[in-house]
């Protein structure tokens, strides 16, 4: 056992990275100040949800049920029945896997106004092992009719999504990542649910990314540009409902689509594939986790390792042009 692991590809040195949980925490407190219906429900996850400050400010409105995810989601539905706007915040892996039937029946089928906040999703808990990875959440939840699924890619978008979710009447799942990400969106960016964001124009190939992979797609587009390839970069914050039009346009106007997600490729990749074959068949390559449990490793290392380094993405994009 020697030290031969390649370091994660270095991000440009000058980038400031943020933990989107900070943005989530500040925004949920802001929202709670403005709307007294807002409550949070957690499973012993005050700290991991960065809700220590919230709990101090709103002790009554912080409901910690302990380590009991089914109870947590059911309680969320009951609170919604009572006119509250519950934000149920727990590690994405336990929230979705452990309370799947409560999410299906109590929240989505019942159309209760519950916000599900999947903390540290994807492989954020990389080295804790696959039991703690939430890479199935996109695939699992997008089978459920009427839920909105969002994976913001930077702190500003996280804040906007939390504000939007508080206003929106209906079930929402939001991924809040702890992986360091830079600001990705422009200052004047406005999140519109269900709408893709064209971050880079280009007609050779399209890179569709969501959440933490958006910055990696942008870096890949830089690499491709250096090789004379004009890659369109679509940020897809909303996994469901998907922006079918943006996908169809990409299928029509470019030579193929690469999807990149910190998830099983049956998530964003699957959603894009299905829109493509039903509307405008075109080549798609999906990067993410593919039918294997991840080995031990940090989140950054695992993304690189599974082809989602900027050069990994660029190389995959090149196969569509070859």
């Amino acid at each position, binding site marked *: 056992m020697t030290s031969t692991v390649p370091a994660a590809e270095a991000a440009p040195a000058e980038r400031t990275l943020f933990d989107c949980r900070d943005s989530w925490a500040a925004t949920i407190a802001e929202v709670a100040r403005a709307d007294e219906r807002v*409550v949070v429900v957690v499973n012993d996850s005050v700290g991991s949800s960065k809700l220590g400050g919230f709990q101090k400010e709103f002790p*009554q*409105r912080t*409901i910690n*049920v*302990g380590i*009991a995810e*089914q*109870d*947590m*989601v*059911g*309680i*969320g*539905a*009951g*609170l*919604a*029945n*009572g*006119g*509250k706007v*519950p934000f149920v915040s727990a590690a994405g892996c336990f929230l979705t896997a452990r309370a799947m*039937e*409560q999410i299906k*029946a*109590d929240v989505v*089928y*019942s*159309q209760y106004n519950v916000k599900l906040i999947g903390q540290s999703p994807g492989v954020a808990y990389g080295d804790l092992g696959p039991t703690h990875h939430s890479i199935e959440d996109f695939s699992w939840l*997008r089978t459920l009719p009427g839920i909105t699924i969002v994976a913001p890619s930077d702190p500003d978008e996280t804040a906007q999504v939390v504000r939007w979710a508080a206003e929106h009447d209906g079930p929402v799942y939001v991924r809040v990542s702890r992986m360091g990400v830079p600001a990705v969106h422009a200052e004047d960016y406005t999140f519109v649910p*269900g*709408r893709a964001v064209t971050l880079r124009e280009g007609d050779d190939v399209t890179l569709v990314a969501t959440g933490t992979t958006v910055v990696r797609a942008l870096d890949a587009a830089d690499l491709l540009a250096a090789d004379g390839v004009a890659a369109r970069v679509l940020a897809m914050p909303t996994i*469901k*409902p*998907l*922006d*079918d*039009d943006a996908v169809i346009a990409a299928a029509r106007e470019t030579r193929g689509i690469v999807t990149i997600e910190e998830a099983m490729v049956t998530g964003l990749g699957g*959603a894009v594939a*299905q*829109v493509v074959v*039903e509307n405008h068949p075109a080549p798609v390559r999906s990067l993410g986790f593919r039918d294997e449990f991840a080995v031990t490793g940090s989140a950054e290392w695992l993304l690189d390792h599974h082809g989602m380094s900027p050069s990994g993405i660029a190389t995959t994009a090149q196969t569509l042009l070859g």
Partner: protein
Amino acid sequence: MSTLAPLEKNAGLVHAVETTLLAAPDREIEVLGRVPAGASRAEAVAHLRRAATEVRRRAVQTVGAAGAGHIGGEFSITDALVTLYLSVMNISPAQVEERDPERDRIVLSKGHAANALYTTLAVGGYIAPEALRTFLQPTSMLNGHPARTKIHAVEASTGPLGHGLPIAVGMALAARLDGSDRRTFVLLGDGELQEGSNWEAFMTAGHQRLDRLVALVDRNRLQQGARVADTNDLEPLADKLRAFGWEVVEVDGNDVGALLDAYAGVPAASGKPTFVLAHTDKGFPVSYMRDDVAWHHKVPSAEQVAQALTELDAVLASIDTEEEVTS
């Protein structure tokens, strides 16, 4: 902009169909409504007994006509449903329609008793009695388990067991946050208590000292395929609940008077949620159904429906007689 919307050219999709109607009952159920204000206890009991018996008369005909249902567990829980809707709860069709925030809440966690619930809602004036003829039929709002998106009076969709109590805990927490005195009622099956989700919620409710929350267990000693004691025994059940921080009240759950008294004493202990351990019989009071596991979801034949009606009519007659005697 919706994911995977129906294929436009798909000829097979016909969404606007009307539903079929089941055969009509011998007589449609009467909307009896709540126990009149100012009624004596005896009058209240008579009203509730009559209503419960009418519900059973109607429900057994629905199951017979639809060819499906869970009649045993519907008959055991009918008295509790009727007592709550027509007397104990602060609830009315108008409050439900207007979504009055102060209405009491109720969750039928054992959602497979949907037919008993629907029929109680009809007798209480929450849904039209004629709607009962659509039970289980295509596009009906009355599917086999109550759906809150289809019926206003249904506070939570149930069916999978072990969901109602956590939801009820959330309702009780919402009431407390509102500083409201409204109460939350939840009706559980005994087999259902094998679900761990209930024990999470029992623990939370005890810890949170939710004394406006009342859970009733329909202790009919039978589950789907066998006796509870032979499957995964719950005893000593009252001890379990006490150890989880609840006050336990034992009662004959097929006696509306006893149920009225039990609910009148709630909260049974201040700072504690109340657990009404309601001893019932599955299939009560029909002779050939009582305490027989087969009647969990067996469908009565035409003769069996007739036999049940005869027995239930005898109950109605006895209520009439008693009323004459006491009035």
